[in-house]
Structures are given as C-alpha cells and as structure tokens.
C-alpha cells in the first residue's frame, strides 16, 4: 500500500505517455512523432482553428447549466492523439470486461437473492441507505438479463503498467459522440496519418449500440424492434449526443411528452397516431423516468412506464436501478464484488478509497484533507469535490465543515498523479494530465468494448480536473492494431 500510495501522490512526477525520462519517444508514439517532426507547427495551429470552425458549424456543442447568453459551448479539442498500444489495450479490455460482467451479476443479485450481503462481503447498510437502490426493481428480470447495456469505465494511468478504475459509470454515461466525432475530425484533417499508422476504427459504435439494444428486446416485441432514444430535450447538456446517436442508429429521438402508455405498451405520438416502442435508450435519470413511480413532479418521463417494464412490455436501457452499482460508496467494495462474482482477483485495480462513513476512514481523511481528493458519493461532473493540494486554506476549512456534518456523503482518494499526453500549446507540445473513458456495450450474449474511447484532458498546466464542465478538453484516442 505504501509504495503504491507514494506513487499516486501528486508530488511525484507524472507518467509521460509520449516520452520516457530520457526524452526518448515511447514505442506507441514512434510513428506519430516521426510524422509530427515533419510538420510545421504553424500549419498545425491553422488546422486547430479549422477544427474549431468545423465543430461550430456542425453544432458539436454542449450546453452549460446556468449560462444563458452563450449557452452552447465547444469542448476544446486537441489535435495530438492519445495513443495506446495493442498490448496495453488487450489487458484493459480483459479487465473492463471482467468488471462489467461482475457489475451485471451484482445488480441481478442485489435485486434478487442478495447473496453477496448474506455472505457478508458487503454491508446491508450500503443498500439500505442508498437512494439509487430501487425497491421497484426487486424480483424484476430485465429482458435478456442485461442491466447495463452501456457502461463508460473511467480509467486513469499512473505508470507504464499502472491503470486504475476511477469510476464505473453504469447509469447513462455520455461522451461517446465525441469519441466518434473526434476521429471524424482527425480523419478529415490528417488523412495521411491514418495510412501511415494502423489505428482501430471506432465508427461502428452506433451499429453495435443498436445491436446491443435490439438483442435485449422485450417479450412483447414481435418482428424488428422499434428503438427510441429518450432525451430530456434540447436544453440538456448532452442533447447533441442524444440526437447524434438517434441519427446514427436510425432510431427515433423522443421526449417524455411524445410518449404515453397505450394498450399496455409504451407508445410514441406519430403523425398517424400512437405506435408502440420496444426498446428505449433513455438518457434521463431514474428519478425522472416515471412520475407515477418516482418523482411525481417529473416532466421528462412517462407516467406508468415502470409498470409496463415490469410486465415485459418494454426494454429500458440502462435498466432502472443500475445506479446502485456505480455510486462512490459501492465503488470502494468493487474489488470484493469482482472477486465474488467472477471467482478471480480483479485485473484492473481500484484507486484506494477511504469511506468517510467509517470512523477510522473519516479520522484519516480529516487529518489529510490537504493531500486528498474528496468526492460526494452521488456527485458527478467534477461538481462539489475538493482537490486538496489545489485548494486554499479557506476552501479546505469550508469543506471540513460539510464533511463533518454529513460524513457518509463522502469518500476520499489520494490525489493521483494522472499520466500526461502532450497538447498543442502556444509554445509547442506541452504535457497535460489525461484520463480515459472506454465505452462498453452489453448484449445478452456478448460484451463489446470499442477499441478507443474518450480521452479527457485538463487544458490548464498542472490541473488534474479533466471534466468538460470545468474547462477540460478532449483528444482522439488511438488503439494501435497489432501488426
């Protein structure tokens, strides 16, 4: 623990993915570095401006909550790809697949026999006090046995062979449209790169998503399943992605008020009347899904959809109640969960996590606030967290108050020395911290992991916060083909 922890601390030098300590280019980047050296940086900067124009024109923007005037922003896109070797990827792939299998088995167990609790491997309190655990799902068999059709596993790297899972994102992970559009942009601007370097394509993700969804069609579906993407609407921060995926899959893009329950099915209002939907890829949270069963004030969902779901009339992807598998308190038990359901130790490690709900954990965290990252158990998007080394004394004092008032609401982790990949800065290439979100599709009979993912990059020097809502950018992610 001590050795590893020391390496994780921000005080250490971060692992540079492109160059080693002697300044030599690492193997995965050799082809790219060669190409780059023959390219004038002025030309590259011109290409960067072209890319921005392209993103604006095609409307690849995200909405920022609370910002009214310029409410659509671009996520900064950096032209230098993040490159991962075939060998590195093969190990990640095995680790992610193992973890996603375990999560689905875990969810099935939680909503049925709860053997893992009876075996004493996780405490009952983890479920009992968890808002993301839905009693309405107890005993429900999701169509095809799949709970998490789509998972976005967040990984961070701290060394040559050191990857950690930071979050499992088993609810409604977003960002996959950027994975695809970033590649499109790179192909458009540097076609010659792709003829020199063998990179796995990522463009078949929408086809695979459609397949994962249709293979989990409900019993009530006869013939070709009708698929719809449910969006909270045009003002949602990820609306572009919802429209993009519906478009690419040939699915309908629906909002809650387009849907109602008709003759025991969930149906959408078309120009010719109501037509049943078989599979709904929902991008609204559990709470808002069904005003009759959950939040009564929700305008985003469909009254009664849960009853149709329980009766086998529709597939909801991801299934309601999957959030219980990815909250940060459950996360700290993932090594036990993986081992319990797969019978093997986890291939990918967790980041060491202190549970503030436990007295020892809380005491440690309060003593080390200045060096830890403290997160809300249910938080996301980089909101409401404390990055100890970057916080002022006043910020730490304020956070200490919140933490002592509701300790069970928080977990803490060491400040990771996230690996770096160069970005194109004014002065040339400059290292910036990155993370990685590969996308996983689960069908009843298989798990597909798209060879690629979303690399998020902190655009500010030294910053460890990569979230787009906090000014982070993205990169195209290359998985090299094994030749």
């Amino acid at each position, binding site marked *: 623990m001590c050795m590893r922890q020391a390496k994780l601390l921000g005080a250490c030098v971060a692992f540079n993915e492109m160059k080693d300590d002697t300044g030599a280019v690492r193997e995965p980047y050799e082809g790219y570095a060669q190409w780059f050296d023959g390219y004038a940086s002025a030309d590259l900067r011109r290409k960067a401006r072209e890319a921005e124009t392209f993103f604006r024109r*095609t409307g690849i923007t995200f909405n920022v909550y609370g910002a009214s005037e310029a409410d659509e922003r671009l996520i900064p896109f950096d032209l230098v790809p993040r490159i991962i070797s075939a060998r590195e990827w093969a190990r990640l792939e095995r680790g992610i697949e193992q973890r996603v299998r375990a999560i689905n088995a875990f969810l099935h167990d939680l909503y049925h026999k709860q053997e893992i609790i009876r075996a004493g491997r996780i405490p009952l309190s983890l479920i009992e006090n968890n808002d993301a655990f839905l009693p309405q799902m107890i005993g429900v068999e999701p169509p095809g046995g799949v709970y998490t059709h789509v998972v976005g596993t967040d990984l961070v790297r701290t060394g040559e062979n050191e990857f950690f899972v930071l979050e499992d994102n088993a609810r409604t992970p977003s960002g996959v449209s950027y994975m695809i559009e970033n590649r499109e942009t790179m192909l458009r601007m540097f076609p010659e790169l792709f003829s020199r370097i063998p990179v796995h394509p990522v463009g078949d993700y929408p086809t695979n998503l459609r397949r994962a969804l249709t293979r989990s069609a409900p019993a009530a579906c006869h013939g070709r399943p009708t698929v719809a993407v449910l969006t909270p609407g045009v003002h949602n921060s990820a*609306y572009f992605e919802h429209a993009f995926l519906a478009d690419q899959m040939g699915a*309908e893009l629906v909002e809650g008020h387009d849907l109602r329950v008709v003759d025991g099915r969930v149906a959408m209002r078309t120009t010719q009347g109501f037509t049943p939907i078989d599979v709904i890829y929902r991008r609204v949270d559990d709470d808002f899904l069904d005003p009759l069963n959950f939040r009564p004030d929700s305008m985003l969902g469909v009254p009664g959809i849960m009853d149709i779901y329980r009766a086998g009339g529709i597939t909801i992807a991801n299934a309601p109640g999957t959030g219980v598998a990815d909250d940060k308190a459950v996360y700290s038990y993932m090594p036990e969960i993986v081992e319990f359901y797969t019978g093997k130790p986890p291939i990918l490690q967790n980041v060491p996590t202190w549970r503030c709900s436990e007295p020892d954990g809380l005491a440690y965290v309060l003593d080390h606030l200045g060096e830890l990252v403290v997160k809300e158990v249910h938080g996301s998007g980089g909101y409401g967290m404390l990055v100890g080394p970057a916080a002022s004394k006043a910020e730490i004092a304020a956070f200490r108050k919140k933490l002592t008032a509701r300790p069970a609401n928080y977990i803490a982790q060491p400040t990771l020395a996230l690996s770096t990949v160069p970005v194109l800065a004014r002065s040339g290439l400059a290292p910036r911290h990155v993370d990685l979100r590969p996308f996983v599709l689960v069908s009843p009979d298989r798990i597909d992991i798209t060879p690629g993912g979303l690399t998020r990059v902190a655009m500010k020097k030294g910053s460890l916060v990569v979230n787009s809502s906090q000014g982070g950018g993205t990169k195209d992610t290359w998985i090299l083909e094994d030749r």
Partner: protein
Amino acid sequence: MMLGRTACGLYWMFRQLERSENTARLVEAGFRMALTRSVSASSEWDSVMTTAGCRDAYLDSHARFETDTAIDFLMRSKDNPASVLTLFANARQNARQVRTALTREVWEAVNEGWMTLRDALARPVRIAELPGLISTVRQQSALVRGMLYGTMLQDDIFNYARLGTFIERADNTARILDVKYYVLLPATSYVGSSLDNVQWETVLRSASADRSYHWLHGGDSKPSEIADFLILDRRMPRSLYYCCCEVVDNLAALARLYDVRKPSHDMAEEAQARLNRTTIDEIFEAGLHEFIADFLVRNNALGSQIETDYRFYE
C-alpha cells in the same frame, strides 16, 4: 413513421425561415420608400411594422417611427419576436429539435446561417451596411432551401417543410396586400401620379415580384394587374394561388403516403377552388380589403387544422 413533434418542428422551422426572409425584404422595400422622400418615412415605417405584425411591440418601446430605430427593431431586436434575427434563431432552435430528420447539409446551412447573422447583427445596423445585410439574409435563407431540395428525401419530412413555407408565404403576401390595398384601388385620387408608381413598386418589391412583373408586362404598371399578379398568377411563386397549389399538393402527397384524407385537405382544396373560379374584377367588386382579410383568416385556420390533423401537439 414520424413523431408529431418532429413534424411540428419542421413545419415551424420553415415558417420561421420564410418569415425571416420576408421581413428582410419588407425592410428593404421600406428603406427604399423612405429614401425617395416622396412619402413621409414615418408613415412608410408605420405600414411596414403593420405588415410585419409588430407595430404594437414597436410602439411599446419607441415613440416615433424613425428609419434607424425601425430598421434596428426589424432586423435584430431581441425584444421583437418577429425580428429577422429572432426568427432565424428560432428556426435554428427548431432545427436542433428535429436534427434527426434533417440531412447534415440542411442542418449545417441553418446553423451557419444563424452564426453568420448573429455576428453580422451583433451591433446596431449602419445604414450603409443595410443592403449588404439584406442580401446576406436572402443568401443564408436560400442556402437552406437549396440544401433542402438538393439533399433531402422527398418524403413526409419534405412535405411538412414545404407546408410551413407556403402557409407562411401566403400569409406574408396577403399581409403586404392588406396593408397596401388602398394604393391598388382604382378609385384613389393619386392614380397616375408619380407617388402611385413608387407605391406600386414597393408592393412588388416587398414580394420580390418587381422583376418578374415588369418582364411579363413590359414596364406598364396597372394596379389591377399588380393585384392579379400577386393574388391569382399561377407562375409567380409568391402569389396566393401558387402558395395554395403547393399546400394542396403537399397535403395530397401526405394523403397518398399515409393513405388517409384529413379535414385540412378539404379546406385547402376549397381555398384553391375559390381562387380558381374568381377573377380580379370580381375581387375588386366585392372589395379587395374584405377579400384579403377573409383569406388571412382562412389561411390561419388551415394552418391550425394541419397542426391538429398531424398531431403536432399533445
């Protein structure tokens, strides 16, 4: 199969685009009139505001009709729901809503059009820039139309887009006539005066019909012929009759596609038949103003019936 909400978004996207272009054309015609000094600029802007349907909104925040403020209000005011910029922004917002029904080309044309106009209209309009701005509006709007024709499947998506365009265009042409009907009446005391000629020119210009009218009539302007041209001509793409025929055709295409007729089909065919059997003399005899007012009411009712028939709303 199409969502009612999608049909609604398409229909309104194209109504708003059409109207935004027409408002720009009205500004152009009004500006020319104000320049000629043969009529008072203030009364000309008054009638332009009335035609554009935003006279009351203008007077809420302005005491007088002046060229600068009128142009600013009509082109870019955020307080004016009928300004060129507001309408274009709304059209783009509707396009975002129905993005899955549009080709990438159509979406990019409307998105780029909006970005161009947003930048071009970021500051108050200087008079010297007005002609350039107006032609930018026309070009951006023409790009969207061109992409619609060049890249979209000619299925129901296309029909809803066209229905929006022609319901709005019929409304706009009728409004121009309604505000200016008196200059077309044979009995006005101005007949033959130079003022009259200028006024007629404005009416034609507002409907982008000046060139085609002169081409057909060899520069010989007569009020009854101008009215005939804008109401009953079958070749003129902004005439009431032409718009009517387009609405009938697009509804007929929907009837074939869905294999069901709706009340709006009867209404549209009735309107077409009414125009078919009348002449401009009969219209003048019964009263041009009354005719136009009646047309506006019916056109409005037809629009609402289409919205109901195809389940635009819950």
